[in-house]
């Protein structure tokens, strides 16, 4: 218990320092909806690319076959710590399957997936929840609990993990500040706009201070203004040092980010380039 609290506190302090360090750098912490997408300038931190580094995520010849369909076949993919990776492709290209494998909702049919050097296949069933606490996941349909307020939805993620009430208070406040939803804490999801709902979901995903944030079509249900809100937020999270994996089929989003783009088609990676664009 003590070891865990140590770990938690450590991560917490680290995050706090980063937030303080980067608050000066952010040109506009307040996200303004009236800001047109074209004007959005995204600041790029130094890339941490080097081939010698042990990758944070390593897919080795991964195939996932369902009864009627092969969702992804022989995928090799390495993602380093601190990267912003966009996975693009049409529906059915295998993006969601990739994410399901990464969150260990499903096992691969063939091949191995390593996260931080550990093979996910070796994680015992009991360890899986603890693994999930180290990755935040955001979905197209938000997956918020309708009968809980914004605050309760975010705090819930900590409650189920046995955090102390003080720690929940502290982390939830900070996560809601980060996504700029402090004022909406007492509202229920149905009283929020789509963008606010997704920001709540992002706050919930971040509240554990995960090393990886996975966003599966986070803007799929949002209008362009809200879409930019979310993309900017994801980018800020990336700037704070979290590895972000964004799955999307929104060409504008990918073209704007100008980061590593992985294009999938028919269950295979057909291109993988830095500063890439969405080209089919």
């Amino acid at each position, binding site marked *: *218990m003590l*070891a*865990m609290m140590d*770990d938690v506190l450590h991560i917490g302090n680290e995050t706090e320092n980063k937030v303080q360090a980067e608050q000066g750098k952010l040109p506009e912490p307040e996200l303004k909806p009236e800001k047109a997408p074209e004007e959005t300038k995204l600041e790029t931190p130094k890339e941490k690319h080097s081939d010698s580094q042990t990758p*944070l995520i390593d897919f080795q010849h991964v195939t996932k076959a369902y009864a009627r369909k092969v969702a992804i076949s022989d995928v090799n993919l390495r993602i380093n710590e601190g990267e912003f990776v966009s996975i693009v492709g049409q529906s059915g290209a295998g993006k969601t399957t990739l994410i399901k494998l990464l*969150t260990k909702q499903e096992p691969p049919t063939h091949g191995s997936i390593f*996260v*931080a050097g*550990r093979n996910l296949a070796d*994680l*015992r*069933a*009991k*360890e*899986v*929840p*603890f*693994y*999930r*606490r*180290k990755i935040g*996941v955001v979905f197209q349909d938000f*997956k*918020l*609990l309708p*009968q809980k307020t914004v605050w309760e939805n975010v705090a*819930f*993620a900590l*409650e*189920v*993990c*046995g*955090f*102390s*009430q003080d720690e929940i208070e502290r982390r939830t406040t900070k996560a809601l500040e980060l996504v700029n939803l402090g004022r909406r804490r007492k509202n229920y999801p149905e009283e929020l706009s789509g963008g606010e709902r997704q920001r709540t979901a992002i706050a*919930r995903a971040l509240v*554990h201070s995960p*090393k990886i944030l996975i966003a599966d079509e986070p803007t799929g249900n949002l209008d362009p203004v809200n879409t930019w809100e979310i993309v900017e937020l994801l980018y800020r999270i990336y700037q704070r040092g979290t590895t972000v994996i964004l799955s999307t089929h929104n060409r504008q989003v990918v073209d704007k980010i100008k980061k590593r783009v992985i294009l999938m088609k028919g269950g295979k990676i057909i291109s993988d380039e830095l500063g890439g664009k969405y080209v089919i």
Partner: protein
Amino acid sequence: MNLGVNMSSSFFPTIKRIIKLGLTNFWRNRWLTLGATLLMTLTLTMISVSILMTYLLRDTAALINSKIDLTIYFRDDTVVDNSITALMTRIQGLPDVTSARFVDKAAALAIWDRLPINENIKKPVTATNNTLPRSIEISTNSPDSIQSVVDKIGATDTDKIICTECVSYSKNKDTVNRLISITKFVQRAGLVLSMFFGLIAIFNVMNIIRITITARSDEIEIMRYVGASNAFVRGPFIVEGILYGLFGTIFTTLFLLAIGYGSSYYAGTSSGALSFLQMINLDIFQYVLAHLFDLVLIQLGIGVLLGIVVSSLSIRRFLEA
């Protein structure tokens, strides 16, 4: 990044949260949970009624058994009181005998005087002219063992006994045997029937708990995404299962008391269908009250256990393999 190594989490706040979540869910989904609670009530009522029936049969059988006396009459001329006392000591030593009472001539006369028979027949027998025989009244632990007791006594002391025909058991043998077989049949049929109904009710409770869990699969999914352990996902549902058992017990007990009170009242005031209860001198309300503690304990045990087992079984497919 450390994967899945810090497996411990603080225990007490977690337990508190699990209980709170269970209570909240119970109240928030009150229509579904009401359905589950009512089905649980039905199950427990059926089980309670069959238990009451078993009790009633058992008590009736015990009553009948205690009334079946094996009486041995002694000849006045050949038997002295001392040998009767000796025989009685031996009878009391027999394994199947629960009690043996010596009735002397004075006691026999007292009984004779109270008999509802013609005074002209009664008159000749007086304290000075007492022709009534002395006897030993024997109670056995079950009607089944009367014959063996008769055999054991009859084999050694036939000369002291007026007549074997006088043993009351011989006259009632057929009736007693029929009664025994009916009692046994009713008991067995009741057991099978209550097991059958109990099984149906258990399936219904299982189904409704499954429905309540499926209705909340979104919540379970979210709990898993945010890294809730299996124990935490399961916990609130187990709390709910316990609540079904608790509320089921409360409803069932109230229901039984109401039925008991109603039937007692009806039996007391009318000459209707339930007046037979008066004839056999049975007050259902009192009877339920007398067994209330047993019943509540049994209901609580079965209800809570059923709730826990069914909830854990139903939640299993939502948990990590």
